[in-house]
């Protein structure tokens, strides 16, 4: 079910400005060109998966979107031209960012990690929702985040951004290195949230992508090699051609 209105779209015509609209994104890191002109559109209210082999620039794309990575090109997020904005200003448009390495604050407790995610948001924090999605976090809310297992940290990293309503979630490989139990918990949580928010997710796990995403964008050699519907991923040959290995 699309919540086009909730995401700022025009309910009458059904069209809306995309949550993310990028043209010609170029990123250079220490002399080498990582992104060579990426054109990317993320429709509102849906889940878009960003796929590609290791090292093609998926994480760099996400980081460039929120300003953690400098780049050139046209970037519009949630209706604003955000190139050159400081990171926190972009995030305050209503973005939740879950980085590849989780980046929870190890010396803070679970509760403090959640609390700090709340500080910059103007909408009320819904701890119940987070604890309902991830009961483990409630049990361990006074535990230092650094002592959590990888899967628990991932839940915390996601729980952080689900504490308040976000218009856009940028999620970077949330299931990487997790056991099947945690993978399914993470996917469940994202499935429940996708009804009320837009998600751009980087994933290597094609099964997860098939479950969650409606659109896919495939990166290769720093540019977009393919865009299309997620249903295309049923075709093993296509998957092998685009990603190198059938998974």
């Amino acid at each position, binding site marked *: 079910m699309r919540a086009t209105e909730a995401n700022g779209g025009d309910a009458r015509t059904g069209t809306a400005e995309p949550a993310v609209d990028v043209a010609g994104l170029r990123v250079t890191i220490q002399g080498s060109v990582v992104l060579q002109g990426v054109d990317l559109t993320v429709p509102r209210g849906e889940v878009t998966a960003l796929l590609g082999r290791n090292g093609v620039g998926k994480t760099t794309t996400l980081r460039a979107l929120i300003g953690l990575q400098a780049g050139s090109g046209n970037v519009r997020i949630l209706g604003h031209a955000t190139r050159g904005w400081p990171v*926190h200003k972009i995030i305050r448009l209503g973005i939740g960012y879950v980085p590849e390495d989780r*980046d929870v604050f190890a010396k803070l407790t679970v509760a403090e990690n959640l609390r700090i995610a709340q500080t910059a948001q103007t909408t009320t924090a819904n701890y119940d929702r987070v604890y309902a999605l991830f009961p483990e976090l409630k049990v361990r809310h006074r535990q230092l985040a650094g002592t959590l297992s990888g899967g628990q940290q991932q839940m915390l990293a996601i729980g952080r951004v689900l504490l308040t309503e976000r218009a856009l979630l940028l999620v970077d490989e949330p299931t990487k290195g997790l056991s099947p139990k945690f993978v399914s918990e993470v996917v469940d949580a994202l499935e429940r949230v996708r009804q009320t928010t837009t998600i751009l997710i980087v994933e290597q796990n094609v099964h997860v992508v098939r479950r969650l995403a409606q659109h896919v964008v495939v990166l290769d050699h720093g540019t977009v090699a393919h865009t299309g519907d997620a249903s295309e991923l049923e075709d093993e040959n296509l998957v092998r051609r685009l990603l190198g290995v059938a998974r």
Partner: protein
Amino acid sequence: MSTFVAITISGLALGAMYFLVASGLSLIYGLMEVLNFAHGVFLTLGAYAGWAAAQYLPQQGWTFIVTALAATVAGAAVAAVTELLLIRPLYGKPVSQILVTIGLDLALVGLLLGGFGSDSRAIAVPAWLTAVTTIGSEHIPNGDWLSLGLGLAVLGLLTWFLRYTRYGIIIRAGAENRDMVSALGIDVGRAFTLVFAIGGAAAGLAGLLNSVVFSSALVDPTQGDQLLIFAFIVVVIGGLGSITGSAIAALLVGLVQVYVTFYANGGGLAQLGNMSVVLVLAIVLLVRPRGLLGRTT
């Protein structure tokens, strides 16, 4: 006649003052990775602010609180302005930030020398501060109690601030990962200014304390810089970025300095106490290059 207890308390009192200086440095470094050389002149300016305020106050009872307040506020104000004007524009260039604090220290001390000359000025203090309290057979100068009290108070305040307030959590998180804090929508810049201000406040107070208790109530333009080196040693021994480490290291350094100076006085080297502190640093570095409680970054 001094006994072991009196010497120990004076060592702890000295350590408490070192902690006041080191805590500000450690806090600033922990969050911003800036080693603030201007801390030296913050110390001195705090002492001068106290001196200026004390000139207008009757020196009795609790008027010293006003003097101390003047020093603290002066330190905080100068530090905040420094961060906004000099540090902020150099974000992302840590070496430049360190260099600019060096330049500021040089310039401001030069200004003070030009204005005050290298002579000391006496700070007016209430009588109770220079008096001695007798406990049993021990005669402890009240200045030592003041230093200990302030050190504990600041330690308590800082710990409470860092653990329970919103900005305290932001600062602790930012010390681990600045980018992630921004990525949660928080303006880290404001935290930077706040941290500098807190560091400056502690420095101002420490500078006043240093003058009043440990320098016979005299203040001169280079006082802060001389103290700064000890603060650096304390911060390195304790481990950069760790407040608790600074506390332990500060007490250790204070005690070593006082014990060596007192008990080895016959050795003829008056500065042996100071040099032995450097020896402690060398030993710590050999055994534990990160300092006692240093981070693993």
